[in-house]
């Protein structure tokens, strides 16, 4: 059976369970917000020291996304959104598998974990030199990378894609999907 069929069967199963679809959506949104905020951490902490007005915080968040879109390019934002969605899907499948089979398989989640973690490095920031990788001591932050962070998103996407396949495969082997 091809890899695509195995993956499709797992996703189809999830799509027929509305609670898991909602869970995927919530996780994807939370991860997207997290990826943007963590790469503009100093931006958010500095405004939080001045005001906690939710309207202003929302404006700052939207402004960040707009700036990444304009300066790093739409592909960068879309890649972060895709990583967030696939990571949410991956986590939901792990929950679905574990709740159905009552077996927790840690090793199939390792790649997913690295993918989710790696995704955090992919989002550009809204001030020079303040991206997550810049904070780790890489002078220039994501600006020194030719694709301004898209490299990390691509790596994260590959890791999550493999993780999704392994989770789907284990679901099939355990009889969760046919």
């Amino acid at each position: 059976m091809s890899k695509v069929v195995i993956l499709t069967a797992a996703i189809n199963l999830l799509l027929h369970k509305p609670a898991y679809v909602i869970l995927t959506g919530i996780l994807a949104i939370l991860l997207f917000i997290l990826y943007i905020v963590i790469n503009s951490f100093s931006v958010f902490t500095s405004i939080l020291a001045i005001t906690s007005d939710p309207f202003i915080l929302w404006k700052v968040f939207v402004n960040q996304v707009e700036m990444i879109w304009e300066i790093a390019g739409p592909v960068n934002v879309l890649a972060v959104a895709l990583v967030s969605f696939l990571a949410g899907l991956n986590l939901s499948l792990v929950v679905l598998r574990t709740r159905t089979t009552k077996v927790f398989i840690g090793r199939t989640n390792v790649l997913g974990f690295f993918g989710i973690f790696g995704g955090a490095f992919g989002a550009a920031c809204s001030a020079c030199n303040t991206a997550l990788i810049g904070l780790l001591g890489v002078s220039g932050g994501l600006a020194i990378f030719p694709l301004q962070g898209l490299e990390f998103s691509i790596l994260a996407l590959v890791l999550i894609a493999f993780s999704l396949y392994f989770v789907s495969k284990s679901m099939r082997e355990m009889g969760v999907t046919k």
Partner: protein
Amino acid sequence: MATKARINPRKLLVYILSKIKMTSLLVTLLIIASFLIGVLYTKVSYLEKNVSGNNSVIAQDLDPQVPQQPTGPIEVSVDDDPVLGKDNAPVTMIEFVDYECPFCKRFFDETLSQIKSKYIDTGKVKLVMRDLPLDFHQNAHKESQAAECAREQGGDSAYFKYHDEIFKRTTSNGTGLALEDLSVIANDLELNSSALQQCLDSEKYKAEVDKDLADAAQYGANGTPSFFIGKSDSQGKFQGTILVGAQPFESFKAAIESVQ
């Protein structure tokens, strides 16, 4: 002989997950999110308390050897840098600028004009421009020096005209403006372009720009643009709260009005 029961963490996790209904899981996620919001709220309250209270403790916590972003107002200096606005404006805003930073350009394109019309032109705020050319932006240091050279010829007014022209012409990507264009800008602004070129070649203002860089590091301004906003002081030093990044106008409005 009695066998000691051992708990397998993996089985325990599976048991817990199997007992949890999906609705409960969503509720749990909601509780975790509420907790995180609560933590954030507490942190904000703590920071706001420090903003209105005695901040000397925070200032003392800053290690001048290790630049770290301040969590409350710290003493910053306007130095002898160019000023836009009335000298007696009650609020001072320092911008640490890098002409080759795309986010500084974005601030210039989108936000500065709003701050100028609402606060600077009305005499409420004066803007002091200091330099923070990051080392990986190849032409930024020279552009900062060129603006200082323009100031030498025509004062703060010439400085800000030159500043505006750089941002209008550069693509802000490290080498967004050719160095040859620095004297062209001077010519277009009816400044003495050969004098500006001589000034640049002599690196007369290199030390001035380097001093701004050192001060920025001391204040914990690691990225550009970085702003310090606070109540003006006739001594040229004031307690400024940092605002990092090309934030929307609403952020600056909140920062300025929290000082007024």
